[in-house]
């Protein structure tokens, strides 16, 4: 009832705002042509998609992970190694990377998924670090020196461009894909089941829901999306190495985007990415190395604040603020004590 009331009341300006927002995203590179700012938006959009991928696992399925970067890195490395060694087209490599990530998720996820809450979170940190250290010392894929992607003729087929603009639109498309998948999840049986599992796992089981199978589905999707973004990263920066693609810092940032934005909410990752990433990039550009300190203090403070005060994240905060600005009469609250009416 709450959701419908909110939607009805906000639909007039809510949807308009959304349309305006989307339109400006679409036209962004033509309005702001400076490559620095385009790069910033590309990074933001990447984290929208990555944050959403974390959200499926952490928000909807309730499994907090700090190892998302491992899938990201696996995607990046798979497509890059295939490109460098076997001249496989990066788009196909992207698919291969997704397959590798899902396979790894399946094999490792199975035993690890039984773990609950904190134990699972720590396990993801351990796994992520194992992957990173392994790749750091694996000469075959470049080890600590990383891999440089070959410079190819600028084309969509080659997934390489001279200008940043095509990259921007691909990133936008991927962010839209991430949102499309989220929309699908929310309205499909998977989404309903994940919500039920979060509400009451025993009740869910008594209603025929196999907990592992559906949480796994969320894990698969999460791994796939992260891996796909990994390939994008490789094709964009034309250089990958373990710290930049598999580091714990990256995993942490991805989780922050989703949680500060609003864990388990539809719009959370979008809000989180649009708030956190510009702050992070801008402080880095203008304050250099010490800028990182400010970032960390801010992120740390924000996440503590979110955890203690408003677990719904910035999105929930916006909603609360938005409600106050709504004008017009509110429909009466639904009556609770109506059970004595004849059925």
């Amino acid at each position, binding site marked *: 009832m709450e959701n419908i009331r909110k939607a009805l009341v906000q639909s007039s300006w809510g949807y308009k705002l959304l349309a305006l927002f989307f339109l400006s995203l679409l036209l962004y590179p033509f309005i702001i042509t400076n490559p620095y700012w385009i790069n910033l938006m590309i990074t933001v959009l990447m984290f929208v998609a990555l944050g959403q991928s974390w959200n499926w696992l952490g928000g909807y399925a309730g499994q*907090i992970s700090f190892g998302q970067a491992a899938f990201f890195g696996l995607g990046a490395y798979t497509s890059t190694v295939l490109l460098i060694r076997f001249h496989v087209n990066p788009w196909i490599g992207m698919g291969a990377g997704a397959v590798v990530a899902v396979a790894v998720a399946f094999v490792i996820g199975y*035993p*690890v998924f*039984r*773990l609950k*809450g*904190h*134990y699972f*979170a*720590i*396990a993801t*940190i*351990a*796994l992520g*670090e*194992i992957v990173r*250290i*392994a790749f*750091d*010392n694996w000469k075959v894929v470049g080890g600590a020196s990383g891999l440089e992607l070959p410079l190819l003729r600028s084309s969509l087929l080659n997934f390489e461009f001279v200008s940043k603009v095509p990259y921007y639109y691909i990133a936008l498309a991927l962010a839209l894909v991430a949102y499309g998948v989220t929309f699908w999840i929310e309205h499909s049986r998977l989404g309903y089941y994940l919500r039920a599992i979060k509400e009451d796992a025993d009740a869910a089981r008594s209603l025929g829901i196999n907990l592992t199978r559906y949480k796994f589905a969320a894990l698969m999707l999460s791994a796939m999306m992260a891996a796909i973004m990994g390939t994008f990263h490789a094709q964009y920066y034309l250089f990958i190495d373990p710290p930049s693609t598999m580091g*714990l810092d990256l995993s*942490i940032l991805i989780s*922050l985007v989703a*949680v500060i934005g609003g*864990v388990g909410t539809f719009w959370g990752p979008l809000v989180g990415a649009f708030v956190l990433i510009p702050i992070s990039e801008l402080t880095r550009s203008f304050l250099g*190395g*010490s800028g*990182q*300190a*400010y*970032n*960390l*203090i*801010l*992120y*740390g*403070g*924000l*996440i*503590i604040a*979110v*955890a*203690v005060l408003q*677990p719904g994240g910035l999105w929930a905060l916006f909603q609360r603020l938005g409600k106050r600005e709504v004008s017009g009469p509110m429909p009466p609250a639904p009556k609770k004590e109506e059970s004595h009416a004849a059925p």
Partner: protein
Amino acid sequence: MNDIIQVLACGLLMGLVYALIALGLTLIWGVVEIVNFSHGDFMMVAMYLVFTLYSFLHLDPLFSLPLVAVAMALIGIMVHKLLIRPVLKAPMLAQIFVTFGLMIFLRGLAQFIWGPNYKVIPNVLISGSAMIGPIYLGWPQLMAGLGAVLGTIGVIWFVHRTETGRGLRATAEDRETAGLMGIDPERMFAWTWAIGIGSLGIAGALLANFFYIFPEVGGVFGLIAFVTVALGGFGSVGGAFAAGIIIGLVQVLSGFFINPAIKDIPVYSIYLLIVILRPQGLLGKF
């Protein structure tokens, strides 16, 4: 042969330090039932405090140890009252992210105050090496091991022989019943955080004798602490001690026989194996 003994000795000494670090973590885990993701980073703070006392007062780590330990204990109590208490009844997500946020915050704070560069304390009182039988051991490392053992014994004595310690164990076992018997959980939690973070003060002061000090130093120690706690058994003080030594040995042996660069992989793998195959660890609560 001498090489292996040398390696084992180093691993043992380091393992004793791991044990001390894990002690605080397992105590907090067992009594307060909070997983402190920022545990390693509090040790980092302790190391920086030692460094600062040295820079401004030329106080050797050996002498600043008690000061830092007490300061850290007080910080621990403060953290509990300000940040942990509000989320004790909150969903697990909130609890994870409070200590997680603290971890990030502390690293940022350290970088802000002291900068990102590696620091070291030159001219410590305890320096040089001793020759024990066929092997050389650095005095700082020996003192660290000794200090860690003393610290561990101190904590174990406290937990098992004092009234408060018994209260801690009772609260860890069954908080409600302990409460019904007059043991104030709030007081127990405060004590737990005091001991837990205070012991990091000791560990930090010991390590500051020979280890580099930088904002991220808490990271690896923190993760190793989790592995140690898991292996020893969540909530088990004796288990943390045994596990710490085992982990220290596994780490150096991996480095020696396989490759120093990947010495942490077997350590992290132990965590995975334990929580999947034997969740109660060696001597665990459950």
